[in-house]
């Protein structure tokens, strides 16, 4: 079991990030559905798992991060802000503005904290295999490459080319997270493209695959703690079962909230729900 204080702090961090996301969603259109489904996973990665120096984003021994589902850029940026890469205010000020550092998808042209620009699906994991191989060539056995994918993104054939490559080249320094929210832009996976059991599929390709509740910070922390060492020979994937739009009743499990904008009243209602849920779990203290 993970340390309870750590879990509570991370849960509180995740709540804070969801509230920040809703505020941005009132300001402008964002990919709120996927942002909310992956918030807990992203928080555990950035506030707990990642070995990273915000003063030196090019630090050789850092863990690498690629946002394969590049549209979850807002939740990534807020997590980076929480880590100290920049301030929250800078995100609100520059999100989707002329020459702003933050947009609908991750772009590294003005933002040194984005290792690889992404957005088009099916690219992040393939590039991550190259990073992982590069680390091995440089005999860097400390760093990991974390990448966050969508389950819908796994429709893309290129993802499976990368899955095969990671196994062939024994890239145990590669750690994938699948935000398994069972939904893509046009609807549920069952309606659009049912990929079946993802955990089994990764295992068939030789990966170490773990399925967890992607909204249970305790489970996510436990899973990260038990990851094979970066110099292991087996790539890992964490299939995090999540709910698109998690925590806000009218957004939850709804393809209508893949991307959207809300008004002030709606934001307040959503905030109340999130805060109430946190209090139910952890009490008022």
């Amino acid at each position, binding site marked *: 079991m993970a340390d309870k204080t750590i879990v509570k702090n991370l849960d509180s961090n995740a709540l804070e990030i969801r509230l920040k996301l809703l505020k941005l969603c009132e300001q402008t259109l964002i990919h709120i559905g996927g942002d909310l489904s992956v918030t807990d996973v992203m928080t555990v990665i950035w506030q707990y798992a990642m070995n990273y120096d915000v003063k030196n984003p090019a630090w050789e021994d850092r863990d690498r991060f690629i946002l394969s589902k590049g549209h979850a850029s807002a939740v990534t940026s807020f997590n980076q802000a929480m880590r100290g890469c920049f301030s929250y205010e800078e995100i609100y000020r520059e999100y989707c503005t002329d020459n702003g550092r933050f947009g609908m998808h991750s772009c590294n042209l003005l933002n040194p904290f984005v290792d690889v620009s992404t957005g088009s699906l099916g690219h992040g994991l393939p590039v991550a*295999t190259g*990073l992982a191989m590069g680390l091995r060539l440089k005999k860097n056995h400390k760093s990991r490459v974390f990448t966050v994918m969508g389950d819908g993104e796994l429709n893309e054939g290129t993802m499976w*080319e990368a899955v095969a490559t990671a196994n062939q080249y024994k890239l145990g320094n590669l750690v994938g997270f699948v935000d398994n929210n069972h939904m893509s832009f046009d609807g549920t996976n069952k309606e659009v493209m049912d990929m079946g059991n993802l955990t089994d599929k990764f295992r068939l390709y030789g990966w170490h695959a773990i399925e967890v509740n992607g909204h249970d910070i305790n489970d996510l922390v436990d899973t990260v703690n038990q990851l094979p060492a970066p110099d292991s020979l087996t790539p890992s994937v964490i299939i995090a079962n999540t709910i698109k739009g998690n925590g806000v009743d009218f957004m939850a499990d709804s393809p209508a909230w893949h991307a959207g904008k809300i008004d002030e009243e709606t934001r307040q209602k959503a905030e109340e729900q999130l805060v109430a849920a946190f209090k139910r779990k952890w009490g008022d203290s």
Partner: protein
Amino acid sequence: MGENGNYTFRDLTAARDVAGAAMTKLGETSDKVVVVNADLMRSSRMQDFSMRFPDRSFNVGIAEQQMVSFAAGLAKEGFMPYCFTFGAFMSMRACEQVRTDVCYNGLPVRFVGNNAGYSAGTMGATHCALEDVGIMTSMGNMAVVEPGDPLQMAKILEASLMWEGPLYIRMGRESQTALYKEDYKFEIGKAIQVMGGDDGAFICSGAVVHLAVEAAKAIKKESGANIRVIDMHTIKPLDIDAVLSAARTGRLVVAQDANIIGGLGHLIAATLMEAGVFCKYKILGCPDHYVPIATTEYLYAKNEYDVNGLILNMNRLLNK
């Protein structure tokens, strides 16, 4: 082959064979050089590199998109990856990976594509790089080169070590002899005048340069007209000075083994328009439709960029 395993101007050789030997030298020069193949390692002549540098040679199987993304990741970690496959697969199957993972991210990946134009006509259009020039030149940050003779491949690869951004190198499949009898300075972006002349000019790239030299010699013999031949090995960034100087002869025949749309002919025409320089102008290249299986010789002749076709088209401009 001459001494020390080097090719000489007398050898009939293919650019890919030269690339094989040159890559081994590059591997010796820099330990950052890595090669990524997609199950065409043997066809691309990378066996020697892979035996000499097994840790720096990768094969991702028949997965060109993965080859390019994997190379992008390696480049991000400070390596200088060279990807090898046919130009058609490089520019089309892996098009978005080249554009998004490499060009958008500003990474120094080198793409070497064989089977330029109809140099592989008997393989059918699936294996012919017809659209690669148009596609690759349209990508931001990308430079596009094509050796004017097989030996120039070694020059290009040597120069590529110092090239900062992404680079696409297309090459024909056919064997040719060397165009240049002596060593010469090669620079990406700087065209080479193979023959002097002020009555007209051929501007070509790749295998067609050789044919243009033959055509210019024949025209000189027939009519006494002096036709310049430019080896425009760098298609992007274009050597504007060489283009404008050639245009001052009053007649340009621009020929390339690639689709006439979006190829060297259109790029040079646009350069002339912007400079306000006008001359008699003809573009030769692969037609803007697909053709049945045929030999390279037949297709070059049919589309008038074999020696006879080049002569015919230059004479038309001379007699206009």
